[in-house]
């Protein structure tokens, strides 16, 4: 089964009001080419689940988010994401703010088709008091304690970016961390994967080690979009680092009147080839140094 498609076709399959999970972590290996494609579409009213970075910021800036499920939104070296901040301070979005581990449990529950997972995490904090949708329960085994029942975060669609994939949806992440991308994919009814490199299946046959960096079986991949440098401006370790200058420019735009529109005009409009050209080209991106933490 050849699952390759274009970003615009893949994103064209989304519908208003869907719940979308976005892989990566902060400014790391975010499926930004797919996010930009959402910006180029007219999709809206999304519920977005994300360990958030500029993916969340851009979707906030363009008014696509109805509800955000998050533990943080940050660009790491720019701690506060400017457009997310603006959206929150203007009360533009509904939120479900939860602990990072609760987000993992919600995805894991969805992945294993369980309705919830009980956890102590969240007890005693405003994560419980501020989220009417999160219930506390008692164990049927009578330990005398209350437990947070973290509900399954079932996704209509997951968007993730990987180092490489074959046409059948075998996806490899060689970076030091695959984050929760496997859980996003498994928690979703459909997973749209963008990849820096489209390879032949034989790529994975070189050694059993290559297959170790494949974190879900291909049946969990619904569509493959070949998007070289598709994580830019986030990093795709080991292929390229964070584009610090681009993120600074992006963050600075939030301080200008109509700064977001100017960013869209300069970078989003006109498609991905124009984008790569505007940000310096693939060779430049692949030369961006890997971040040191």
């Amino acid at each position, binding site marked *: *089964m050849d699952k390759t498609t274009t970003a615009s076709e893949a994103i064209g399959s989304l519908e208003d009001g869907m719940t979308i999970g976005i892989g990566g972590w902060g400014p790391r290996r975010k499926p930004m080419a797919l996010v930009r494609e959402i910006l180029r579409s007219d999709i809206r009213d999304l519920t977005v689940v994300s360990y958030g970075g500029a993916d969340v910021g851009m979707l906030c800036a363009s008014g696509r988010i109805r509800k955000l499920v998050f533990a943080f939104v940050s660009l790491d070296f720019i701690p506060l994401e400017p457009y997310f901040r603006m959206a929150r301070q203007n009360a533009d979005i509904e939120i479900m703010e939860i602990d990072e581990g609760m987000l993992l449990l919600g995805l894991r529950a969805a*992945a*294993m*088709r369980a309705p919830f997972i009980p956890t102590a995490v969240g007890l005693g904090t405003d994560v419980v008091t501020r989220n009417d949708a999160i219930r506390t329960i008692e164990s049927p085994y009578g330990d005398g304690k209350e437990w947070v029942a973290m509900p399954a975060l079932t996704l209509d669609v997951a968007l993730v970016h990987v180092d490489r994939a074959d046409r*059948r949806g*075998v996806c490899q992440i060689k970076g030091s961390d695959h984050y929760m991308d496997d859980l996003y994919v*498994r928690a979703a009814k459909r997973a749209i994967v963008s990849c820096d490199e489209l390879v032949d*299946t034989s790529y*994975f*046959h070189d*050694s*059993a080690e*290559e*297959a*170790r960096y*494949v974190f*879900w*079986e*291909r*049946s*969990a991949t619904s569509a493959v979009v070949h998007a070289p440098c598709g994580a830019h401006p986030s990093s795709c370790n080991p292929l390229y680092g964070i584009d610090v200058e681009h993120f600074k420019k992006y963050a600075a735009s939030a301080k200008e009147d109509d700064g977001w529109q100017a960013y869209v005009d300069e970078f989003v409009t006109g498609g991905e080839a124009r984008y790569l050209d505007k940000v310096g080209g693939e060779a430049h991106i692949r030369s961006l140094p890997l971040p040191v933490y």
Partner: protein
Amino acid sequence: MSVDLMIGACARAWDGDGEVLASGIGIVPRLAASLAMHRNPDLMMTDSEAFIVSEPVPIGPRNGYVPQFETWMGFSRVFDNVWSGKRHALVTPTQVDRFGQANISAIGDYARPKVQMLGVRGYPGNSISHANSFFVPNHTTRVFVDGEVDMVSSIGYNPERLPKGYSPDDIDIRLIVTNLCVMDFGGPGKQMRLVSLHPGVTTDQVVENTGFDISIPGEVPETAAPTAEDLELIAGFDPHNLRTTAVR
């Protein structure tokens, strides 16, 4: 009965399955899955150890053949696949009842079994999560038992055991291939139904060797013989001819 005929019949369990993991546990089921994957390369198989492979791995000593690894799937990850529903297993239970409930755990009194077998293994999770088919190499009333199996290891279509919030359509038992015939659950109210008879086998033989009533259509075709291509493929997947000793 020709083992190749049964392998060919078993392989059809995965017809129309699309992209699921084809798990054939045992020599005949595994060869059947291999044949099915050859026909439908969207199917997935493992090396029966810890990796998904891009083509079926021949059974027995490898003699230099290197499995075409594509995805790690150790046991801890197997259940991610099972619970996703994207799997269809062909297994060999010791008992099967009219509801399609199967047993590989224990025969006799559960507190003090007459025969202790493996244990339920993954049967409960498989049966509530994804499609399952059965291979029964010895079609007798000892396998197809009257009443319920002694230890219900996998859920079937028993209305008294249907969990709250479930419909019988949530359970998916596909095909039963035995040394006499092929059956499914296409009879009225999910009754077990005779689909085809292996060459030389009569309906009466099936009825006599089944401990409960099954649905018998007016016309029962003969189980299709494997094609010459099938036979060649099966031989290729079984270079050491292990299948001949797999079935009595």
